């Protein structure tokens, strides 16, 4: 049962991420990206990490891609941008990334084949355990991420403020 669900979710992830790359219309591509993220959440859930799955939906699908879509709406991209995308997305653009991805895929296959115990089947991790781990052994990573986000926030505030004062004067 889990195996079948995993195959379906994985197929949807791969298919929708390919579509997200190849769509010419930016908003269509973003919606396929959302589908990818939701399918990934299903995979997390099947691997026994319901907390990660829920956060994947809340944070990535619910907040970050919404902001992307928000920007796309603000820019109001029309037909001209679709044509420009069409010019950029020519077959020869795919060679470089394809070779790099193929190398990465080969490394991944070797790594999975070599690893002694590929034990990824359903041990449930409760939200509480995730919390104690994050604020125990991984506290430095959490604090660093906090610094990074604060820096981003201050930077955005600074830029926005300068724009406002320019407009007033």
């Amino acid at each position, binding site marked *: 049962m889990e195996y079948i669900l995993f195959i379906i979710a994985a197929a949807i992830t791969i298919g929708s991420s390919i579509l997200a790359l190849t769509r010419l219309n930016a908003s269509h591509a973003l919606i396929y990206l959302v589908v990818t993220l939701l399918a990934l959440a299903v995979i997390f859930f099947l691997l026994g990490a319901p907390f990660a799955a829920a956060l994947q939906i809340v944070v990535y699908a*619910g907040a970050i891609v919404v902001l992307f879509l928000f920007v796309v*709406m603000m820019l109001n991209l029309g037909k001209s941008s679709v044509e420009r995308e069409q010019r950029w997305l020519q077959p020869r653009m795919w060679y470089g990334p394809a070779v790099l991805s193929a190398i990465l895929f080969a490394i991944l296959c070797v790594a999975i084949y070599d690893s002694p115990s590929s034990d990824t089947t359903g041990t449930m991790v409760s939200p509480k355990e995730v919390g104690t781990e994050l604020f125990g052994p991984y506290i430095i990573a959490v604090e660093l991420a906090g610094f990074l986000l604060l820096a981003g926030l201050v930077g955005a505030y600074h830029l926005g403020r300068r724009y406002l004062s320019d407009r007033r004067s």
Partner: protein
Amino acid sequence: MFGFEINWSYVLILPVALGVLVFALVLVWWERRLLGWWQDRLGPNRVGWFGVLQFVADAIKLFTKDDWIPPFGDRFFFVLAPFVVCAAMIMAFVVVPFDEGWVIADTNIAVLWFLAMSSLAVYGVLLGGLASNNKYALLGGLRAAAQMVTYEVFMGLSILGVVMMAGSFSLSDIVMAQADSIWYCIPQCVGLFIFIIAGLAETHRLPFDLPEAEHELTAGYHTEYSGMKFGLIMAAEYVALILLSCMITIMFFGGWLGPSFLPGFVWFGMKVFILINFFILLRAAIPRPRYDQLMSLGWKILLPLSLLNLLATGAVLLLI
């Protein structure tokens, strides 16, 4: 195995989904009647007993109306948007416990599931605004996106106090934790206050219905919608109202708990119904703020307040 036991709860899926939708439709009539009463007029009172069957008439009208899709818009997104918003709202009912054990999936991420589904509902509104290719719809969609993403933050933070006191994300556990102590509406009154405001903004109902403010944006993001697609958006709005009332009942007013002479789901239903009436009263009583007022209220007052509430709750829990 994955945080919930699969048992007879599958049986609940269809009754819950249909019940919520029908209740949402009846609620449209009930709201109009109440508003009429408060505003010294009659409201819809012609169809059936006191106009109860008004929703049937509305449904027939919506089904038979011309379902127009704007040729200048994005056809696929235009059709998709009402389904997304309605499906997300009904999916959230999966984790709502109506009585002890009366829940489709009693997972230990129920609170997060509710937040996730209400954040996915943003897409319906956003896509509706984007696909209509109309300046009012676009402005409404932009406002809705900014408003909902903003208020999601405090919505999550205001519930965290309750989660800390109950020690679980599971809604059944949160209700059971309130059986031993006082209902959380007293110790978490700040959280309740913030949650009500954030929930109103999240469901974009009056007084926070700026994404569809009639006097400035005609109808905002659903300007171009007609027929049954408009009906779905309308129904989703009322389903969201029911969901919000259910959540407040569960997390702050003890869910199905109550004196034992009535069964639990009756208590649950009564509390939810009283809260729904309260929200309708808010709609009648409070005028709509300006958009920048709404945003600055959120970031400058509610965010620090919810963080302080969280800090105080944590301190008190550690000291006890």
